[in-house]
């Protein structure tokens, strides 16, 4: 009888599997690091004050991305301004008012499906619906992004509405408050965290979107203020990246890597904001 229980073959097998797992982890991590490193190394040296503070000039042959940065900001603001009331309103309807469970299920399923559709399809629909009616412009792009982000905002708001304790609602009803007053004073303040999280997630998604904007928001690099920007075509950072990457012009490739580095940094900032907001609201609700 042997009491060194595990056979050599089995030991080898265990070691092999452990090794494979480590390898997978290393590859995953390595790919991410390589990608970030590559973009930063190629991009950061090209991020100059001149690049981010001027606009493209075909006369001087210089590339500036200030219009693209502003367009990105405009489109994020416009989209959020429209998608927030819609998404939060829908969430309130579904959790507080809707009595028909089947209808709720259908709407939730539709939202779920909507969030899984490839973004180029939103672009196509946005082109037919919005760009064909009032031309390629930031507003057409923003409206397209509204459709795209509506499910995210609605679901996050809905999830946080569900966390508002039923006892708060009962307490308010018990004092003779009407439905809308209960929603406005007790339920809505309780879901601010979900709304903020939904906003940040959407902002991240808008920042990274290009396919849905190519056909709808246009490709111009002109400098505009917010309101004239909404009415005129304009490229966002991701669209500009795509455009410059295809251009054989000197400096274009460098510009697209610079944009890539900026986008990466912005994504990092947005993710950090989401994490910080989450932590802040957790602390506040634990009070």
């Amino acid at each position, binding site marked *: 009888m042997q009491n060194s229980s595990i056979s050599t073959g089995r030991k080898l097998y265990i070691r092999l599997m452990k090794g494979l797992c480590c390898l997978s982890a290393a590859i995953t991590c390595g790919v991410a690091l390589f990608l970030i490193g590559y973009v930063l190394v190629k991009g950061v040296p090209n991020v100059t004050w001149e690049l981010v503070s001027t606009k493209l000039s075909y006369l001087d042959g210089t590339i500036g991305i200030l219009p693209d940065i502003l367009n990105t900001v405009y489109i994020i603001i416009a989209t959020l301004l429209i998608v927030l009331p819609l998404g939060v309103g829908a969430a309130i309807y579904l959790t507080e008012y809707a009595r028909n469970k089947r209808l709720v299920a259908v709407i939730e399923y539709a939202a779920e499906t909507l969030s899984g559709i490839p973004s180029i399809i939103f672009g196509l629909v946005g082109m037919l619906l919005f760009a064909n009616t009032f031309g390629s412009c930031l507003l057409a792009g923003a409206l397209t992004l509204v459709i795209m982000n509506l499910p995210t905002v609605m679901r996050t708001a809905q999830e946080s509405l569900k966390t508002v304790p039923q006892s708060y609602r*009962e307490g308010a009803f*018990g*004092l003779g408050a009407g439905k809308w007053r209960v929603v406005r004073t007790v339920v809505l303040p309780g879901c601010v965290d979900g709304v903020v999280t939904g906003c940040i997630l959407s902002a991240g998604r808008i920042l990274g979107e290009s396919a849905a904007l190519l056909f709808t928001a246009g490709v111009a690099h002109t400098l505009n203020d917010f309101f004239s920007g909404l009415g005129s075509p304009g490229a966002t950072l991701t669209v500009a990246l795509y455009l410059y990457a295809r251009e054989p012009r000197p400096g274009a490739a460098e510009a697209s890597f610079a944009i890539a580095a900026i986008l990466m940094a912005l994504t990092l900032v947005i993710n950090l904001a989401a994490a910080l907001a989450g932590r802040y609201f957790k602390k506040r609700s634990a009070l």
Partner: protein
Amino acid sequence: MNSIITAKDLCLWYGSAQALKNIDIDIPEQSITAFIGPSGCGKSTFLKTLNRMNDLVPGVKITGRVRYGKQDVYAPGLDVNLLRKEIGMVFQKPNPFPMSIYDNVAYGPRTHGVKGKAKLDDIVERSLRDAAIWDEVKDRLKKNALGLSGGQQQRLCIARALAVGPKVLLMDEPTSALDPISTSKIEELAMGLKEKYTIIIVTHNMQQAVRISDYTAFFLLGELIEFGGTERLFSQPERRETEDYITGRFG
């Protein structure tokens, strides 16, 4: 005795399960009435039919009649919000809103259109005094109510209910989540409040019913078995089931 709330032949179903069977009761004004009975006997359900809190539960069907004064509580077109202003409620678990102590108490009056700081200040102070918590919170009215202890939170909820000027206060096991000291504070408070209000209290605790109530109703399996003066009901129950329950043979 003048009755303030009357139920006649009241039945209630949750879906297809009948939770209340032909309840007939006259609840006397300016007194404390206790509802006792084992878990699931329908006492809380019945309490909630009195200010229509059961409306919030989907799938509830009610037949029969509840009257508050001369008003049919289930009449179509009745303003439920006004009804609940008249018949306030205190819940099993203290449920202050996550706002300041002041805003909690002012919530009801504001809901019913009271404006003006002086007026609200006055209502808030009076309600907190009536709920015997004024001295403990007068220096921290702007602090979040969730920072209070459980017993204080429950007295705050009573103050919040009093602030809208109800005639009747429904209390659904208001002390079951509290420690003995807080419990006795709430009991004392209830006994003081019956000067001005009619109190109906659901309780799991028979000693509590004996200590504070003037009348007791014993429920079993959705039926009102016996109703009468508390002393009489506990000393000489008329029904066998009541005697078995109060002597602890089941429960």
